[in-house]
């Protein structure tokens, strides 16, 4: 038994040395996942992005209230701190052309007589002009128009009710209306920041690492077939080494290889780019269990394949297929992608890693996923090794 383990470690060590010397391991195991994770990180480092430029126009022909509305919206206070929602004053005549050609995402135009709406009996009238292709910008312009209309209505309600109740003279009424100008709404929104250390890199770097893990582990598993073809397997078996030692050695080799690859991606993104993956114990457990799952699947695929080429083809198809279905190319997927994701090992692992990083979970939260991945790995791996045993023995 001791001899079996010694031989197994020797075989694993030898396989590892050969793979480390091969530059494709460095590219697929580390450079590609980190590089692709970084591309996503740089692209979306600023978080979800939506920006809109909304025009504000006065088509009343000289209303002081309309001029004040345009002025207050475009003076800067109402815009976002970095201009993601910007208001610009425009001529009423330019509104439609500007929205049509995309200079503006939407616009609001004060029409009618706001003075008559506040002091008299006319309704507040605001036209919202949006682009057919930009539904959200149009809706935001509509919300801003609601705020403006509500503000004018507030003055009207406050002053109108007071004047009616006090039977004010025209002179007094004028003073009441002046006092009611610019009343601020009593329900206001208070923006608060939710602290989050989540970096999108901590999703895409492992997502890509798991995709390439299939290729690196697959090559390791296939080495049983290639060594049989090249005759080196017969030479190993000529030595006092059991078939079990060969298979355990090959399996250990791919598991250590996968673990090194994922751990390196974790270390590089954390140390070089300050990405926080969350609770280290939980992360280590998820990464190890997904290596076991992927190694098991790779051994299974290699075991049932008849030839090296067939194993190669099936590994690529399984790797790319699981990457697509497991959401390796989308973050925050909903609908069909989210439903399919849970049926793939990489999707399960990505959900668990997101739980640890963005959800601030701990080992206990991801333990069911860890156990499930280990189970998948052990079952598929056992079938794969049993099939490979026949190949070794031939």
């Amino acid at each position, binding site marked *: 038994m001791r001899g079996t383990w010694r031989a197994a470690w020797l075989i694993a060590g030898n396989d590892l040395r050969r793979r480390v010397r091969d530059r494709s391991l460095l590219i697929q195991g580390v450079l590609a996942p980190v590089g692709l994770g970084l591309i996503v990180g740089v692209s979306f480092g600023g978080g979800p992005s939506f920006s809109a430029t909304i025009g504000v126009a006065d088509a009343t022909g000289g209303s002081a209230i309309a001029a004040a509305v345009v002025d207050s919206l475009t003076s800067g206070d109402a815009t976002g701190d970095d201009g993601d929602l910007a208001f610009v004053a425009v001529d009423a005549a330019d509104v439609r052309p500007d929205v049509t050609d995309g200079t503006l995402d939407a616009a609001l135009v004060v029409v009618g007589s706001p003075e008559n709406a506040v002091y008299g009996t006319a309704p507040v009238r605001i036209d919202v002009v949006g682009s057919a292709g930009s539904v959200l910008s149009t809706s935001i312009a509509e919300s801003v128009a609601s705020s403006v209309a509500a503000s004018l209505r507030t003055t009207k309600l406050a*002053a109108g009710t007071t004047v009616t109740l006090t039977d004010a003279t025209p002179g007094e009424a004028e003073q009441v209306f002046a006092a009611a100008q610019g009343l601020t709404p009593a329900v*206001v929104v208070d923006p608060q920041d939710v602290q989050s250390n989540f970096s999108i890199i901590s999703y895409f770097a492992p997502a890509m690492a798991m995709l390439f893990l299939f290729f690196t582990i697959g090559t390791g598993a296939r080495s049983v077939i290639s060594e049989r073809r090249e005759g080196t397997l017969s030479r190993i078996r000529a030595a006092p080494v059991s078939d079990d030692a060969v298979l355990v050695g090959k399996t250990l080799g791919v598991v250590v290889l996968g673990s090194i690859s994922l751990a390196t991606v974790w270390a590089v993104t954390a140390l070089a780019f300050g990405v926080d993956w969350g609770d280290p114990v939980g992360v280590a457990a998820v990464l190890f269990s997904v290596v076991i799952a992927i190694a098991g699947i790779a051994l299974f695929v290699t075991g049932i394949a008849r030839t090296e080429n067939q194993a190669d083809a099936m590994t690529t198809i399984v790797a790319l297929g699981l990457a697509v279905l497991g959401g390796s190319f989308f973050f925050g997927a909903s609908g069909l992608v989210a439903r399919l994701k849970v049926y793939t090992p990489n999707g399960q692992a990505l959900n668990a890693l997101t739980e640890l990083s963005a959800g601030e979970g701990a080992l206990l939260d991801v333990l069911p996923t860890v156990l499930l991945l280990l189970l998948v790995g052990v079952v598929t791996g056992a079938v794969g090794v049993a099939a490979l045993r026949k190949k070794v023995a031939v």
Partner: protein
Amino acid sequence: MNLRQRRLAVGQITRTELKRYLQDRIALFTTLLMPVILIVLIGSAAGSAPDEFLVGVLDEDGSATSQDLLASLDDTPALAVVEYDDAEQLRRDIRLSQLSAGLVLPSGLSSSVDAGREVQLGLLTTQADQSAPSVIAAVNGAVADEGGRLAAAVFVAEQTGRPLAAAEAEVDAYAATVPPAQLDVTTTGTVRQGDENAFTGAVTSQLTLFVFANGLFAAAALVETRRLGVSRRALSTPIGSGALLAGLAGSRFSLAVLQAGLLLVIGALWFGVAWGSPPATAALVAVYCLVATGAGMLLGAVARTADQAIAIGVPLAIGTAMLGGTMWPLDVVGPVMRVIGHVMPQAWAMDAWSAIVNDGAGLSDVALEIAVLGGYAAAFLVAGSWALQRKLTH
């Protein structure tokens, strides 16, 4: 060899290479099945442009007032409301980017309103979320009516000395006589096909991604041809290196055109995409297939082994696809990433597709994009042929 024989030789090499490729199961998977699966997943996941913000609302007050506010938030076109009953869950989903923002209707809201005190609604967003100003504008619009009514009642109570409850009743009675605001929303321009049919963007982006990716993947077969000495044997015949290279390029170009053509047909028949100007579409497909052919020949010349070609080709295909806007539109990334993205041929192809399918552009409208892609094609083909010829003849 005369010209006719040379042409026959090129044709024969092209046919042989095509036959080899079509027998390859991985090739068939990445050529057709994977793009179609991705089109279905991406197209059914979401439209290309969001039309509302998903906002989680935590009603801590549970009063009629808070329910009124909730209803008016629900009625706001820019917002889609999801109710929460756990603050930690709400914060967690914001951190996970599953919500654009969270709104807390605080306990004591109703009593504050009754007492005429200003109410602050906590709007939770992550600092990185650049859509926060737009969400704030939309929520402000939704609560403006209630906030204005309350501010008016406080004003009336102060001016007339009535208790707040009585003032509120007076304001409500007066409000019934005031005509509601008229907000007329009109849209201009036409709905772009990409906004109406989410599969339009999915088909064009996956076509752009996979034609290039397959061009790169074909490099592995080219390396094998080189390694097995097939090319050298072909060179020992009178056909010459020029005809051999033309045959190799011809086969890869034919495959790219075949793949693009099938995706165009599937896009039209299954996903209802209207392809617009035939000359513009044909020119774009032709020049882009040349780009993919050239890139594959270049990689096939520089890679030492087939494994290395795959190890470089897969990450290169994914990385350039991410940067070039085929995994997400370049509209959603910052200006720097948009410029970097246009170093990739994919970005120019995506610009041209968008113009053709969304804006009805003709050949002359996309002349710039096609010219740039022509430049890439020429550069890749010349460099690839030169490098391959050197490898084959030295």
